[in-house]
C-alpha cells in the first residue's frame, strides 16, 4: 500500500487533490481511497487530506500517520504544524514553492530521504500562468506523477478531466504537464 498525505490551507483544493489522485489510480486499475481530515472547512485554515493506493481492497479507515509521500501545497504551513510527522525514510516530499529546499530550510529533512525523493515545484506560479488562479493542486499531481512514477501523467490528466469542468480542466492539465516537465528538468539537472 502507498499512502499520500496532502497538507495545505482551506481553499487550495487539498481535498480535491487527494480525490484526483485516487481517481487517477482507479483509472489504472488500482484500489484507492481518498478522504479529508474532516475539520471545519474554513478558507486559510490548515487542511489535511489523504490518499491510499493498493492493488487490493483497502479496508483501513485510520488517518495516514506514516505516509510514503507528502505533498505540501503551502510552505507557510511549516511554521504552524508538523507536516513531516511519520514520513517514511524511503518516502517522497513534494513542496509547492518557487524557492529551493535549502531556502525553505528543508535540506536536513530532504537529506534523510533517498536522493531525488524531495523536490520543490512552483505549482502556484504554474497554475497562475495556465489557470489564472493560484490553485496548485493539479500542477502538484503532475509533478507527483513525475517524481514517483506511481501514476501516469495521462491518468492524472484524465482524473483532472473528471473532477473539473471542461475549460478549467484543460487549463489544469496544462499546469500539470508543465509541473511534470519541471520535475523531469530537475532530474536531468
Amino acid at each position: 500500500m502507498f499512502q499520500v498525505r496532502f497538507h495545505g490551507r482551506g481553499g487550495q483544493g487539498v481535498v480535491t487533490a487527494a480525490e484526483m489522485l485516487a481517481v487517477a489510480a482507479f483509472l489504472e486499475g488500482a484500489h484507492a481511497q481518498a478522504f479529508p481530515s474532516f475539520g471545519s472547512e474554513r478558507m486559510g485554515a490548515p487542511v489535511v487530506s489523504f490518499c491510499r493506493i493498493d492493488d487490493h481492497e483497502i479496508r483501513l479507515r485510520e488517518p495516514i500517520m506514516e505516509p510514503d509521500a507528502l505533498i505540501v501545497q503551502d510552505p507557510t504551513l511549516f511554521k504552524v504544524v508538523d507536516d513531516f510527522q511519520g514520513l517514511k525514510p524511503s518516502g517522497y516530499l513534494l513542496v509547492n514553492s518557487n524557492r529551493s529546499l535549502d531556502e525553505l530550510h528543508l535540506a536536513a529533512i530532504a537529506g534523510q530521504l533517498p536522493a531525488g525523493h524531495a523536490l520543490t515545484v512552483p505549482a502556484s506560479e504554474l497554475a497562475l500562468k495556465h489557470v489564472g488562479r493560484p490553485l496548485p493542486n493539479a500542477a502538484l499531481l503532475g509533478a507527483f506523477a513525475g517524481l514517483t512514477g506511481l501514476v501516469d501523467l495521462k491518468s492524472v490528466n484524465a482524473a483532472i478531466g473528471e473532477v473539473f469542468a471542461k475549460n478549467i480542466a484543460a487549463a489544469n492539465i496544462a499546469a500539470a504537464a508543465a509541473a511534470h516537465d519541471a520535475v523531469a528538468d530537475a532530474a536531468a539537472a
Partner: protein
Amino acid sequence: MLKQVEGSRAMAQAIGLCRPEVICAYPITPQTHIVEGLGEMVRTGEITHCEFINVESEFAALSVAIGASAAGARAYTATASQGLLFMAEAVYNASGLGLPIVMTLGNRAIGAPINIWNDHSDAMAVCDSGWMQLFAETNQEAADLHIQAFRLAEELSMPVMVCVDGFILTHAVERVDIPEQAEVDAYLPPYEPVQVLDPQDPVSIGAMVGPEAFTEVRYLQHYKQTLALRLIPEFAAEFKARFGRDSGGLLRSYRAEDAELIVVAMGSVNGTIKDTIDEMRADGVPIGLVTLVSFRPFPTAALREQLVRVRNVVVIEKSLAVGMGGPLANNVDLALRNIAGAPQVHSVIAGLGGRPITRAALHRVLRRALEEPWEGSHFLDLNDTIIAKELHYVRKVRRSGPTAENLLRRLGQAAKQSVV
C-alpha cells in the same frame, strides 16, 4: 458500473435508482452531499417522476415524508445528529403509523459540546423508536443497503434508517459498483402501499388509541421487526444472487470459526478491525470479528450462535449511554442472557466525536482483553492526564468554569510545553 466516487454521491445514485417519488431534506453536515446530489439529479431529469421539496427544518423534512408516504409515494429523506433530534417526534410518528420511509443517517456526534464529527450517538438516541436500523461498513454497502432498505420497508410497511458513518464514509472517495436501473427495477418492485390517503376510499391514518388497543399496536410494531429478522437475510441473499455482492444481512463474521476472542462492532470501523485481526492472527492470536449490520431488529439468536462458544467478547462501539456504558455492549449482553458458561463481555467506547480509531490502539486494547480483561467500560485512548488535572481542579475550585473550555485550555498548554 464501477466508479471511483464520493460515498455521498454513490448513495445519491443508488437512491435515485430506487425511483423515489418525494425527496425532502434540510441540509446538515455530514449528510448534505447526499441530498445535494439527489437535488441535482431531480433537476437534470436523471430521476423522473420525483418531487424534491426544500423544507425549513428537519422536523418539516420528516413530516413531509410522512405525508407523502401516507399519500402513497415512495418517500426519502436524510439527516444527522441534532437534525435527527429536531425531528424526533416525527421519527416516532413515522414508525408508529407504519409508513415505509427510508432515511439516511450520516452518523454524527450530538452536542453539547458542538461537534460535527462521526460517532453513533444519533442512531442510538432513536434506536428504540420503531425504525429499523442498518449500519454500512463500506460505501459499496451504503449504496446497496438503500436498495435493500426500500424493499424491506415497503414489504413490512415500516421505516428504515440506513446508518452511514459521517465523513469516514460520506466524504470518502472509493470504488463503488453502481447497479444498472433494470437490475434495481427487477429487485425493487413499485411501491404498493398497505394504507393510503385516497379521497375515493377514505381512511384515518393516525387515529387516537387509548389503553384498549395501544399495547396491541405496539406489539404489532415489535412483531414486524421480528419478521424483519427473517426478511433481512432473505433480501440480502436475493441481492447477492442478482448483484453478486455480499451486502446487508443481519451480521457477518470474519475469521471467527476457530476464534477464542470475538470482536463485535458496527459500521466503517470494521475495516480497520479486520486489518488488525489479520495482523494479530499472523502472531498466532485466535481472534475473529462479528460485524453487526442490523441493530434494529437486534439479531439476538444469530448473534448468540456466533458468540456462545467463545471465552471473551469485546464490543467496540462509537456511542456512550452516559451513566450506563456502551449501549451495543448492553445489547450483546442480552444475546447471552441466561446461558450457562456464557462468554465474558468487555466493552470498549471508541471514536467519540470523530476521534480516529487506529490499529495501534486496537492492538493495545485487544491484547489487554486477552491478558487482563476488565469489567465496565474501557474508553479507548482516553487522555488520563487532562482528566486527572480537571478532576483535581474542580474539587479545589467551586466556580471551576465550563468543562469543555477547561479541557481545551489544558490541551493547549500541553501542546506548548511539548514544543519547549
